[in-house]
């Protein structure tokens, strides 16, 4: 990077079915919380990047960058919407980091927002399916859960991953979410409940799937050399990486791995000068149970094909000696307002590295990673952060 960048403020709404809150309400609430966190009035913000997957279909509104600048009281600063399906949020954070690293701006806000419950569940599901290849996947009746189900089926075939293994990330993530006041599902579930929940797309069942949610999150970045004007605990951006892969699953040589994750992670570890085992806490993209199993393998936390057993041994719990994965509850239990999720991952890692994560605090966390996936892996964004002191 041309100059080091730090995060100096974070904020997010509660995630869930927030019937009383509009798209604008959500974004403004998260943004104001981030400003308060950084001790800013708002005058300091020079530009905004907003991750949003599909306001056009969810609330029948495009051109949301202008809407957000307007409702936030931040016109005339430039505001840019960023879209990469469920990776929109992570990508917005990356654009803000790049804008500051380049020297173009000093103080930039990256936000993410999605209002999904103004439409029916059927309409929301159809909108999420637009992250897949419409002409060559969705045309044949393939749903989004079915794509991840086909990844799961192949993973079970090649590596002996079991139905019980699949249940373990959701069980862990629900347990973690009981400690997160902003999570959508603050209750525990058992392996039996996952395995007996209704089938959605074999072998995936309802409790393997992340929910439909409303929510927003925001982070404020600035040059590291300015960071102490705004906070005593700046969080340094050690790496920002992004990779692309085919839109359709069938165009990949190996569907049990997300090549874009492998490539983005390799770049991120190289930028940060660290190895996977140096990561203390990670927020990974668990839109489905199998997605978390594949993510911990592709990020290098375990060998390919060994994630099931690693979960069985409790390797990714908050109090494990290994890396803690999704202490927030992940997309599964914290909630998954698609455009906001990638930003909320960064919010969680910042709170963890500051030591402000309350009952879900990972002891002594110094290096944190976020992993945000668009679609079935067509876009992946990986960030690495470290405490600045």
């Amino acid at each position, binding site marked *: 990077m041309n100059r080091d960048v730090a995060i100096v403020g974070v904020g997010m709404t509660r995630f869930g079915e927030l019937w009383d809150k509009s798209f604008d309400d959500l974004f403004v609430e998260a943004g104001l919380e981030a400003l308060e966190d950084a001790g800013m009035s708002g005058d300091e913000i020079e530009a905004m990047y907003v991750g949003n997957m599909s306001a056009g279909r969810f609330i029948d509104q495009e051109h949301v960058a202008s809407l957000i600048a307007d409702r936030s009281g931040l016109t005339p600063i430039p505001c840019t919407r960023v879209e990469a399906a469920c990776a929109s949020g992570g990508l917005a954070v990356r654009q803000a980091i790049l804008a500051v690293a380049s020297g173009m701006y000093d103080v930039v806000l990256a936000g993410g927002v999605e209002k999904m419950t103004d439409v029916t569940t059927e309409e929301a599901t159809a909108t999420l*399916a637009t992250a897949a290849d419409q002409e060559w996947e969705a045309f044949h*009746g*393939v749903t989004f859960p079915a794509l991840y189900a*086909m*990844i799961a089926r192949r993973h079970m*075939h090649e590596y002996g991953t079991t139905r019980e293994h699949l249940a373990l990330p959701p069980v862990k993530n629900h347990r973690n979410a009981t400690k997160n006041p902003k999570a959508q599902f603050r209750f525990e579930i058992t392996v039996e409940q996952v395995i007996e929940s209704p*089938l959605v797309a074999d072998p995936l069942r309802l409790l393997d799937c992340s929910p439909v949610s409303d929510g927003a999150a925001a982070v404020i970045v600035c040059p590291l050399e300015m960071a102490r004007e705004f906070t005593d605990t700046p969080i340094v951006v050690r790496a920002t990486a992004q990779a692309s892969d085919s839109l359709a699953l069938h165009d990949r040589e190996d569907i049990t791995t997300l090549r874009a994750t492998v490539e983005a992670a390799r770049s991120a570890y190289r930028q940060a000068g660290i190895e996977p085992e140096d990561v203390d806490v990670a927020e990974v993209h668990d839109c489905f149970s199998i997605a978390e199993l594949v993510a911990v393998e592709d990020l290098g936390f375990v060998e390919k094909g060994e994630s099931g057993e690693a979960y069985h041994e409790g390797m990714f719990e908050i109090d494990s000696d290994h890396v803690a994965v999704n202490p927030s509850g992940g997309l599964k239990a914290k909630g998954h307002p698609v455009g906001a999720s990638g930003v909320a991952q960064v919010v969680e890692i910042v709170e963890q590295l500051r030591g402000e994560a309350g009952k879900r605090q990972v002891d002594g966390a110094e290096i944190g990673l976020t992993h945000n996936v668009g679609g079935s892996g067509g876009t992946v964004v990986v960030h690495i952060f470290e405490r600045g002191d």
Partner: protein
Amino acid sequence: MGGVPRFWRSIDNRYRLVGTRCENCGEVYFPPRVVCPKCRREGEMKEVELSGRGEIYTYSVVRVPPEGFEEKAPYVVAIVKLEEGPLVTGMIVDCDPGEIDIGTPVEATFRRVSEDGEDGVIYYSLEFRPVRREE
């Protein structure tokens, strides 16, 4: 699923499994590509009709169907590895989900896939069915 022109443009691909082959490297693509990702400007794409024979690489059973597929659910979807090389997504018809497994041999068969409501386009395409051994 996008109306008449969008569907009409892909009729050769959906009705006859017309894909593309790069004359430079020999790789076969389905769905068709304009540019060979391996050869890019060096490549030269020619249309090629595929046999429709292959085997199941992975599959799922859709229990919660999207709009237009309600009457078919539950139904099997799969990624099929065609004998010419490419992998392709499709529905597996004429079968019970229980008789499908990774490696099951399949062949293409012409089907009505879905429709855009009562007045909309009716979508047809080649899908796949298990190859039955001669009795």
